[in-house]
Structures are given as C-alpha cells and as structure tokens.
C-alpha cells in the first residue's frame, strides 16, 4: 500500500493530516477526508470548522523526490477562469 501525507489549506490556515492517506484514493475521497478532518478539528494548524466546504477544491499529487522524501497530496482552492456564463463543460474546472 502506498501512502501520502495530506496537506490542507482552509480559511487562511494550512496543516498536514497526522495520519497518512492512500496515494491511490480518488480526488473525491481525498476531499471528503479533508472535509471530515477539518470538521472534527483533527488537522494541526487548522481551527475546527463545522461548515467547511472543500468539495470544489483541487487535489494536487507530488511523488516523493530527493528534497521531499515522502509522497505529498495537497488540497487547495481552484483558480480557473472562464468567460461563458454557465459553461462548465470545457474541462477547465477540475472540480465540476
């Protein structure tokens, strides 16, 4: 089983989940775990928040390398822009 350290950014705060998560988990699973972790206050550095909304956030995955010797997964806000009202069909929003 391959595991990764999960980092979450929320409400101006940033922290790592104490327990590693499966590298092969889906984005949806990662976002669900991140949401539950922030809701339960189990992420050091992030204040417990009941109404956390991470389902539109993005999951970035970085394999271990010489500088960072463990697999890392980051949950962060998305940053795409699109000009057409109501158009989410062009594959530019990874959260849709």
């Amino acid at each position, binding site marked *: 089983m391959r595991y990764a350290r999960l980092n979450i*950014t*929320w*409400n*101006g*705060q*940033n922290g790592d989940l104490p327990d590693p998560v499966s590298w092969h988990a889906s984005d949806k699973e990662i976002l669900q775990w991140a949401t539950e972790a922030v809701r339960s206050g189990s992420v050091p550095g992030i204040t417990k928040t009941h109404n956390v*909304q991470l389902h*539109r*956030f*993005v999951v*970035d995955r970085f394999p271990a390398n010489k500088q960072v010797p463990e697999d890392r997964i*980051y949950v*962060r*806000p*998305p*940053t*795409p*822009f*699109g*000009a*057409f*009202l*109501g*158009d*989410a069909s*062009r594959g*530019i*929003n*990874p*959260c*849709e």
Partner: protein
Amino acid sequence: MEVAEAAVVIDHDDQPTYWHLPAGRTAASIPDSRDLWMVLWNGRERLAGVAHTHPAGVDQPSSIDLVTFRACEDGLGRRLSWWIVTPTEVMLCSHDPTDPRGYRCHPDPVPHAWVEPLRRHSWPATDSSAREES
C-alpha cells in the same frame, strides 16, 4: 497575437505583482493553476485581488469564475476584489450575500494603471491605442 484571457494579481497599493499568462489559456478560459494559487497564498498579507479579462466583452462573472472567487476566499480566509476587464469596461466584483450568485459587480471608476497592460496581454492593441503608444 492570439486573443486570450489574461489575469494579474494586484496588491494593496494597486500595483500588479504577478502577470498570469499560462499555457493553455484561450479566448474564453484560463486553466486551473497551482502556480497562481501559490502566488495568492504566499502574497496573501498584501493581496488586494485578481483581475482577469473577458475578451468577448461579457461584463459579468461566469459560473467558473464564481467558484474560483468563493474557493480562493475560503482558502485565504478573507474577501478579495475581483475585477473583470472587457474591451470597454472594468467591473469590480465583491462578495455580497444579498446577490443570488454571492457576488455583485459594479463598474469601477478608479483609473487603475494595470488595466491597459492587462488588455494588451489579452488582445492586440487597437489602431487608436497603438497610436497612443508610439
């Protein structure tokens, strides 16, 4: 040059701090970018907001824009200014819980120095603006 959406990060002094012109941007979209997020996060203490262009002239945010506005503010833990620059207008959008979309946009009367450079990154200069520069 190809017409393509462009974006710029603006600080509290109304200065552009990062021109966001990634590969893959089109006349109707700018792709998701971890680089842009890291610029916002690392510069969050002096961050005022982000401007992006709508070359086709639509002066309101798209549904994708609205998701980005909301998610970035959620991530940063504070509200930002979101400008939409068209060929003829500069709209300033900000959080407004009374708007069904969560954001309300008004024409911005402030003459920001970064508006014309941002337009130049998005579509060719018109004849009149080219003359002004020469």
